[in-house]
């Protein structure tokens, strides 16, 4: 079981101090938060992708490459990478590069994005977002698995003899999670490819997620990737922790009340009753988090939202001390004791390499020499099967 944090990358006024951090301050803060996550023993740091203020994370692979370079154990990921408004070819290239630089300490989570104006800024249409997401991922999946791709679809210009470079590290594609809270087609696609499925688990009451995760598990088994219990499930959640329950509620209330998405709406107590939000002592957060597996089945990754709604970086770092120091160690122990012993871990680069090669040496693609024209595709790598290589006349 992996534990980590995920950030929306919002830049929000601190309702207590009245200060709004600058973009520069918030970007510095997120790096410290990610590094702290590793220091306190968390496994995963994931960042969102946005293309409008008041967010800062438009270029997740740049940020994550820096974080990977300044950490040694932390797995970097996204929450989410936009599979609709990004060209899947660019996703294939950028994340393969991140995979090389981080030595495989990365994966990514795909999402559609629900901000209507962003779509036309990138030449897309939100009304087509579902077929666009599905088609784009079909292409991305292929680009990471075939050296040379011929492809034609509805939304993107066709590809002939295209090779996405660099090839994935050890020729093992990054593991992909599909984030969705209400779209059976996304669950179906995750199941079809044997990818992970992630429910952000923040807004809707849990019954909605339970049904969709159940459908994903069932289809994962149907496509022959394993049993329903072996399907790869991730969940979000959010917590605010203090040693004493009252202190947690008192500290967090002004942030809750002004939070960008649910602020000025339901009371914090209603939200705690009806959603996975926990605000309280370490023991209360542990108890609530332990209920997740009872509802959704044993799962592989738990991410907490810790740095939103204008919480100052010092508070977030204190939160991570409590989360990593007092909550997660107990959760690891309790979940290990309770979960089905056959529950698989979330795939990592190392486990995927082992699954593909066993004791063999992983493939290391070496390109053929540049013939000078830069366009003669067909067999770009020295170990590409001879039969698919074009033949050239002796000069």
């Amino acid at each position, binding site marked *: 079981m992996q534990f980590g944090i995920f950030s929306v990358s919002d830049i929000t006024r601190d309702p207590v101090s009245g200060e709004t951090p600058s973009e520069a301050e918030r970007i510095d803060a997120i790096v410290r938060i990610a590094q702290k996550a590793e220091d306190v023993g968390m496994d995963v740091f994931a960042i969102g992708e946005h293309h409008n203020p008041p967010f800062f994370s438009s270029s997740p692979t740049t940020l994550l490459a820096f974080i990977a370079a300044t950490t040694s154990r932390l797995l970097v990921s996204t929450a989410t990478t936009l599979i609709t408004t990004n060209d899947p070819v660019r996703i294939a290239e950028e994340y393969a590069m991140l995979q090389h630089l981080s030595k495989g300490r990365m994966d990514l989570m795909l999402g559609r994005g629900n901000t209507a104006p962003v779509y036309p800024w990138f030449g897309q249409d939100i009304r087509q977002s*579902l*077929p666009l997401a*599905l*088609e784009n991922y*079909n292409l991305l*999946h292929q680009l990471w698995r075939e050296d040379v791709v011929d492809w034609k*679809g*509805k*939304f993107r210009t066709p590809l002939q003899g295209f090779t996405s470079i660099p090839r994935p590290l050890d020729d093992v594609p990054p593991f992909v999670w599909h984030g969705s809270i*209400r*779209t*059976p*087609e*996304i669950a*179906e*696609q995750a199941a*079809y*490819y044997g990818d992970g499925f992630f429910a952000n688990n923040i*807004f*809707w*009451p849990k*019954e*909605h997620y339970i*049904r*969709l995760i159940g*459908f994903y598990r069932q289809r994962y088994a149907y496509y022959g990737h394993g049993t329903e219990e072996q399907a790869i499930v991730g969940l979000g959640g959010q917590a605010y922790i203090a040693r004493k329950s009252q202190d947690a509620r008192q500290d967090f209330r002004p942030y809750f009340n002004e939070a960008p*998405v*649910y602020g*000025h*709406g*339901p009371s914090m107590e*209603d*939200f705690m009753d*009806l*959603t996975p939000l926990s605000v309280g002592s370490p023991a209360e957060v542990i108890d609530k988090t332990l209920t997740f597996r009872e509802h959704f089945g044993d799962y592989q990754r738990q991410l907490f939202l810790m740095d939103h709604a204008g919480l100052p970086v010092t508070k977030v770092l204190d939160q991570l001390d409590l989360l990593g120091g007092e909550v997660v160690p107990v959760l690891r122990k309790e979940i290990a004791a309770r979960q089905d012993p056959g529950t698989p871990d979330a795939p990592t680069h190392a486990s995927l390499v082992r699954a593909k090669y066993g004791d063999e040496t992983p493939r290391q693609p070496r390109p053929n020499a540049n013939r000078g024209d830069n366009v003669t595709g067909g067999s770009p790598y020295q170990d590409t099967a001879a039969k698919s290589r074009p033949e050239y006349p002796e000069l």
Partner: protein
Amino acid sequence: MPEGTHPTSTGRSAPVNDAAQEPFSLAIISAGTSDPSSTRLLADRIADRSCELAACHGRTVTSNVIELREISADISSALVSQLITPRLQAAITVLGEADGIIASAPVYKAGLSGLFTSFIDVLDDDLIIARPVVLAATAGTARHALVVDEQMRSMFAYLRALTIPTGLFAAPEDWGDPALNKRIDRAAVELVLLMESGFARKIRDASWDSYQHEYGSAGGTEVGIDLGTDLMRLAAGGSAA
């Protein structure tokens, strides 16, 4: 939330004739803000006449009142945060299971009260397809009379509900005018006949899938998943149509 209230693409479907012996379920939405309120009074009088009339036809009616005043905070939470509280969900379930609906709202500023429209705004588009609805409004002046036909009717048309022909409107002077009773009687006849016809149930049985639905819509009852769609084929590695 009972499942299988509506036929879904997985093939669950309620038998058409089951309802013959069941009481009619009547949902009454009142957006009146005082207690008692004339808006609620108008709704109650329609409901009473409908029950009497149904009884004459040998049918009983179970009425459920949704007093929006009591769930106003839940409605505003849902509007701004997508959080559906249990109390709001209970109201949604009542509407989703109703054979007939009486919707009664006050008019304040040449338009339906914001409480009423806010409630309608948080409902799923497919919650009350084909259900017979009595439209009723109250106001402090007769100059608001057209709100029923010009605003309320189009709102329920958007929801694909079946609004009954007679619209009811009561300004202060109408409460002393027997003509209001006559219109209430007329509306009750229209409502009861439409409930008796089983039109809404038949529409749902015959063509539920031809309306647009989302996973979890129809108040949380639409949980069927059709694996045979173009999008599902695309999800499983196929190509876009």
